[in-house]
């Protein structure tokens, strides 16, 4: 049984690899659910895995025994086994048992499907209009006059209802540790709710191929306590987009921001941004462009040449060239946009 040895080695290797990799990064993995949707999914994942491991074990046991016992032996060259046609009882058994197993999985699946689609209480909860764009996310807090991009603040322990649409191609909103994904189509509003059980910053991803920078279309869900959330809401509502920055460099930056027609696409304050992300709370963002460390170096690089960071993005080429010096001034301005003390750090990360 030379072959069996190799198979064993193979399994050992893959298990080793899995242990090494652990369950993934805590605020990204679906394997350690931190929200209602993810938990419901995880229960079904576990249930189905259990059923399947059982089936697999049965198959493998029969398979190995058959191979060991009925392998042609020396001196059996002319042995002709009995030509069996079939066996009604056996075949009924392996028809009925799978039917039962499928039912065990089907019933909770249907229940969960309806549970996660239940939007009847959306009137009471926080409602957020989500727009997917190549390659960034826009969030509009309904009734609150708050617009954000990339960072989605939500209160813990509450159902937050998302009404999602796309401005261009199909995207798919996925926050693995909080909730399963839902497509964001250009023609209809898709609804889902998310609920975080613990404070934290969770990574969100775009899961539907949407162009060259599909893999960089990340965002963050910042889950804070309900009190902090209320605080954040009132802070955001009190932003004055006209407010002059304190220091001179930032002031020059602000002027440049207008001069270089950045304002044509980006908004600061609650006016709904159109082409580019709303930058109201940019200084508090956990990432630049969804995935870069928030430091000046990165920001300058982005402003000077977004294409080298996010290929195919719609900012490239839509504003006059910016020198490094100018970019530094603009970033000084953007980095001091910190309307609230409630930040991703205060959410635990």
């Amino acid at each position, binding site marked *: 049984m030379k072959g069996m040895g190799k198979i064993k080695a193979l399994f050992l290797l*893959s298990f080793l690899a899995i242990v090494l990799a652990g369950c993934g990064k805590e605020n990204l993995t679906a394997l350690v659910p931190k929200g209602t949707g993810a938990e419901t999914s995880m229960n079904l994942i576990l249930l189905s895995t259990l059923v399947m491991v059982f089936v697999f074990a049965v198959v493998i046991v029969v398979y190995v025994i058959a191979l060991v016992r009925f392998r042609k032996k020396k001196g059996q060259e002319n042995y002709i086994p009995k030509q*069996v046609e079939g066996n009604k009882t056996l075949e009924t058994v392996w*028809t009925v048992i799978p039917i039962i197993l499928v039912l065990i999985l089907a019933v909770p699946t249907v229940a969960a499907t309806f549970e996660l689609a239940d939007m009847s209480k959306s009137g009471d909860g926080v409602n957020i209009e989500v727009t997917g764009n190549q390659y960034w996310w826009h969030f509009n807090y309904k009734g609150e006059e708050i617009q954000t991009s990339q960072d989605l603040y939500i209160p813990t322990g509450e159902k937050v209802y998302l009404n999602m649409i796309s401005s261009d191609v199909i995207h798919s909103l996925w926050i693995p540790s909080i909730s399963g994904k839902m497509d964001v189509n250009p023609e209809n509003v898709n609804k889902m709710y998310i609920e975080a059980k613990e404070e934290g910053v969770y990574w969100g991803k775009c899961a539907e191929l949407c162009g060259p920078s599909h893999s960089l279309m990340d965002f963050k869900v910042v889950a804070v306590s309900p009190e902090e959330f209320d605080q954040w809401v009132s802070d955001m509502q009190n932003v004055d987009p006209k407010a002059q920055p304190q220091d001179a460099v930032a002031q020059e930056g602000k002027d440049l921001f207008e001069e270089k027609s950045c304002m044509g696409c980006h908004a600061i304050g609650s006016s709904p941004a159109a082409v580019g992300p709303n930058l109201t709370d940019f200084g508090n963002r956990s990432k630049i462009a969804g995935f870069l460390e928030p430091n000046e170096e990165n920001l300058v690089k982005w402003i000077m040449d977004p294409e080298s960071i996010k290929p195919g993005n719609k900012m490239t080429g839509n504003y006059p060239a910016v020198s490094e010096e100018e970019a530094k001034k603009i970033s000084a301005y953007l980095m001091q946009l910190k309307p609230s003390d409630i930040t991703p750090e205060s959410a635990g990360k």
Partner: protein
Amino acid sequence: MSIAATQKRGFGAFLWDYLTTVDHKKIAHLYLVGGGFFFLLGGIEALFIRIQLIKPENDFISAGLYNEMITMHGTTMIFLAAMPLFLGLMNAIMPLQIGARDVAFPFLNSLGFWLFMFGGILLNCSWFLGGAPDAGWTSYAPLSIQSPGHGVDFYTIGLQIAGAGTLIGGINFLVTIVTMRAPGMTYMRMPLFTWTTFVTSVLILFAFPALTVGLFLLMFDRMFDSAFFDVALGGNTVIWQHLFWIFGHPEVYILILPAFGLFSDIFSTFSKKRLFGYTAMVFATILIAFLGFMVWAHHMFTVGLGPVANSIFAIATMAIAVPTGIKIFNWLATMWGGSISINSAMLWALGFIPSFTIGGMTGVMLASAVADYQYHDTYFVVAHFHYVIVGGSVFGILAGIHYWYPKMFGRILHEGMGKAAFWIFLIGFNLTFFIQHFLGLMGMPRRYWVFLEDQGLDTGNFISTIGAFLMGVAVIILLINIIYTAVKGEKAPADPWDGRTLEWAIPSPPPFYNFKQTPLTRGLDPLWIEKTEGKGKMTPAEPLGDIHMPDGSILPFIMSLGFFVAGFGFIYQVDHNAWLLAVFAGIGTALICMLIRSLKDYHGYHIKKEDLEREAD
């Protein structure tokens, strides 16, 4: 023309012979070479993808090129490699299994092949003409509508041409099986591979029109400013997804059912037992095919169809597990109590059982809609469908090639190299894909050009890439094996494996008229019956007589070339009206070929009884 006329006469004649052949066995060679070529191409594309993902934030290839790679890898593997390789095996073997002299429409058979080949070449020309399609093999609108350049145009036209070829091939097989079975070969005596060829052809017949329609709409949106998928003008993008998956899901079964059939033949041959539960196997196949049409929306659980649709499609999908389970257990029961001999063909079949079981099981897991909200569009799905398509279809193709190679080419593939390739491939395959189940759940969506540092995805991706290279090594060994065998391979007898079905009753390779006298079939596994009853060979169902054979023809080749040229015309006429010339020239050529075919009488020719008598058995 006499029998001797098929002898080799230098390369030019050899080439001409293959360009004009209507012999299903030679068309099989063409499919295997064509499909094999695209398989290597798709494999190289896969390696590019895996090199890019060997470490986080790699910059081996650009984002745009990466999307072209994934699109072409998927499209090539599905349409231009796996399916044609199966069509090749079917062409080579199915007519022999039913005791037929030929297929029903030899001319169409050749046309089917050339359309596939030219469609595939057209699609790949995009690499050199400004960029390949980049919207994924599923080409979801509106991304595919907005994709700049001509990449997606090559996709619509190339697949349209290749798809027409496949449809023609399927119809030919259907009619062949319905009308050309030897006396006594009733439906319930057909070998499982013939059965699955039959059912697969039905799937092709019903599934491909959906693709045709979808591709036309996409083509019109891109080239002629229609607005089927343009939301701003009242179009709807989800329609594309429905059309695509109404075709796409059965397509998956088009790729797996032939493997099921061929494994059934292999298990019973190498266990020296008749297939356990033959009737159940046939009905399970039909049931799987039927359900295959009912479950397309399980690819769309996250589209927002609502809980009612999601529940219905979830349950329908899970139901497929039942007939599939029946098959797995019947194969095990076929081996049980048998006398199992293991060679490279059987190894691939044995490797298939655990691999495909894993793929099937993750399929049921995916069917649980709410769990799929996590799996969908992640590496979990990538792992799942590779366990099905590689662990099922590719293992099937490789098993089939090893099993029927002696029949097709008269030589036996080298066993040592065959086994080495198998083990290396099996290990590489599991290394590559097993870990991807976890990568997906750990937050790695599919079609990601880069994954970021410090997200816990490094180790898994690294292992996955190493595995991919092992598979590459195995394929190289297989190629060496084929070359080695061609040069100094062992000559094959008519019946090297102590076979049970009719293809083993005639010489290897078979004469071009297949059966000198149509064999009389007295039951399931007809050759086995004759062998156990001491005769050892088939009883003829008719006296020796003249055999009528069809003429070869270059028309299918020229006709396909015409569509190929017209394809370029369609693609480029948006840039410049002069390209309409190519449209007219191409379509005109094809029409003239059709006219010639319709007006000219093709009488074929007869092989004289006396010539046949002179041939040794």
